[in-house]
């Protein structure tokens, strides 16, 4: 949905510019990391952790929509699978350390991603959206009926435990830095994927699939890998969220959640690396603020209105619009 243009300047000039751009980007990321490290002293850590979990979820979703052009309406299934698996394991096996629980949850979500992916990439465009939505609903019903999820009540009192067996996560500050590390890992993985040759082919497929196929690329294989990475990271976000809040519930599996992550990505900017982070921050803050105001019951209506406004007149999202402004005025 966003295209990157590259001018045909002399090779050395291009190289020089790319180098400078890379340097600027690295400095920017460094600044972000510093902000992330200081943040828990300025804001409530639990709130920040919620933002980071949803930001990772949205980043994972954006990898698929923004860089492969696939609109999944079923990403809640991965978030919930990660959450339930981690929650169940940590609650039933007290000796298990949280990082192992999170790895297990992520692995299962990745596996589910393979299954989902193999089925859904058989159809394109809006059919892809409908298929993912339908399979996610199937997963939802399975969670409702499965014995280990606690049905309508969900899983409560999941212990945070001790990281690597010796770092207690019971303090919110320790928990925050663990979540922050996970987010950095996920974000770096996505950043690497997008800027790798694999990411370039993915963009080529998004822009013109028949052409990419005619050039000899196996489009389905590329899409599947992108889907699986995205599903795995969404599962990682769900697993982490469960450890933070010590609960896993059906809310995470509901299709509303799949819609929310689309909104976060759209609002922040589809196909931009920082957009989902910003979108998640705004949506989570909005929900937080609205929940305490008299408008508490109107959250879904307000989200719907933002959705409509975004689609009608704000399609590049906040980061996308800022980027456009920057390009117009400073280049």
């Amino acid at each position, binding site marked *: 949905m966003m295209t990157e243009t590259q001018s045909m300047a002399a090779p050395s000039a291009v190289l020089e510019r790319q180098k400078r751009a890379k340097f600027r980007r690295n400095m920017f990321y460094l600044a972000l990391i510093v902000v992330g490290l200081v943040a828990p002293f300025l804001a409530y850590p639990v709130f920040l952790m919620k933002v980071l979990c949803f930001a990772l979820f949205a980043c994972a979703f954006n990898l698929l929509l923004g860089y492969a052009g696939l609109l999944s309406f079923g990403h809640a299934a991965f978030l919930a699978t990660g959450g339930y698996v981690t929650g169940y394991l940590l609650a039933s096996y007290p000796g298990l350390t949280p990082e192992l629980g999170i790895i297990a949850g992520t692995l299962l979500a990745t596996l589910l991603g393979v299954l989902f992916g193999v*089925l*859904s990439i058989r159809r394109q465009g809006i059919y892809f959206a409908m298929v993912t939505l339908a*399979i996610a*609903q*199937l997963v939802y019903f399975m969670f409702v009926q499965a014995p280990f999820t606690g049905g309508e009540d969900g899983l409560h009192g999941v212990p945070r435990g001790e990281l690597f067996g010796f770092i207690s996560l019971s303090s919110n500050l320790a928990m925050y830095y663990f979540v922050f590390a996970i987010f950095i890992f996920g974000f770096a993985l996505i950043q690497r994927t997008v800027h790798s040759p694999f990411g370039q082919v993915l963009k080529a497929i998004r822009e013109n699939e028949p052409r990419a196929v005619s050039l000899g690329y196996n489009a389905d294989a590329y899409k599947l890998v992108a889907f699986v990475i995205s599903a795995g990271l969404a599962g990682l976000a769900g697993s982490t969220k469960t450890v933070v809040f010590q609960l896993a519930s059906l809310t995470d599996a509901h299709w509303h959640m799949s819609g929310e992550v*689309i909104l976060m990505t759209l609002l922040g900017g589809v196909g931009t690396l920082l957009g989902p982070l910003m979108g998640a921050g705004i949506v989570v803050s909005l929900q937080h603020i609205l929940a305490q105001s008299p408008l508490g019951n109107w959250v879904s209506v307000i*989200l719907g209105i933002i*959705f409509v406004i975004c*689609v009608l007149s704000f399609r590049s999202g906040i980061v996308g619009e800022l980027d456009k402004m920057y390009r117009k005025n400073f280049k």
Partner: protein
Amino acid sequence: MTMIFGVPLAVFMGQLTLGLVNGAFYALLSLGLAVIFGLLKIVNFAHGAQYMLGAFAALLGFRYLGINYWLALFLVPLVVGAFGVLLERFLLRRIAHLDHLYGLLLTFGLALIFEGTLVNFFGVSGARYATPEILQGGLNLGFMFLPTYRAWVLVAALAMCLFTWFMIERTRLGAYLRAGTENSQLMQAFGVNVPLLITLTYGFGVALAAFAGVLAAPLYPVSPTMGSSLLIVVFAVVVIGGMGSILGAIITGLAMGIIEGLTKVYYPEASNTVIFFVMILVLMLRPVGLFGKEA
């Protein structure tokens, strides 16, 4: 007592009827989706919400204006359809030139708005809408008891499906619609007012959903969330059938209803997931759908 695979005939037939009635709703709704998709190329995510609006319009019309069931069956589709016309004219048209995924997202936002607003006013518990007196009770067919209202729903839904089929396949307007589905730019070059046709088509699809909503009002609790879970099943039905043909949508809808009903008899645990499993099976064996004809 006659048994079918270890189940009493009356129970079997009862569930089969329930399944057929559900299937009639799947058929009506997937038909509306297919008609809209054909010309506008968007998936109307607000279809479930518009079905719900139909049921609510009937309920509120009766409560505050004393509009009876039969009048509602006629008036509600017109009113909700007119609302759909406004949505198309002022919102959907503005993004018609973009990637069709945006249409899906826009209608999703609209569905959230409609649902959320009604939840605030009426809660989620659902209200009852009285069955019209003439359709109360049931018919004793000897081997089973057939509730009159369910029989009526089946007849009315099928009649509406056939009416739609006739309109699209056998009338001049329908010919325009089919031609527009094939190539709307050429149609416009021939002097047909395509934007108007698109607006009316969307309105008609929405009216179909509202008609289904009025039919459903006496059967199911009328609640703001009645449409959304149904819509996801209808999406699966659409994937199974493919949106290529009108008759395909009707047949797939009814067949899925029957399969769901039979699952309720023999393996009730899977009754709300069976259609999704059928969808997965179809995706593996025939990805374009049973009646689909894409390359």
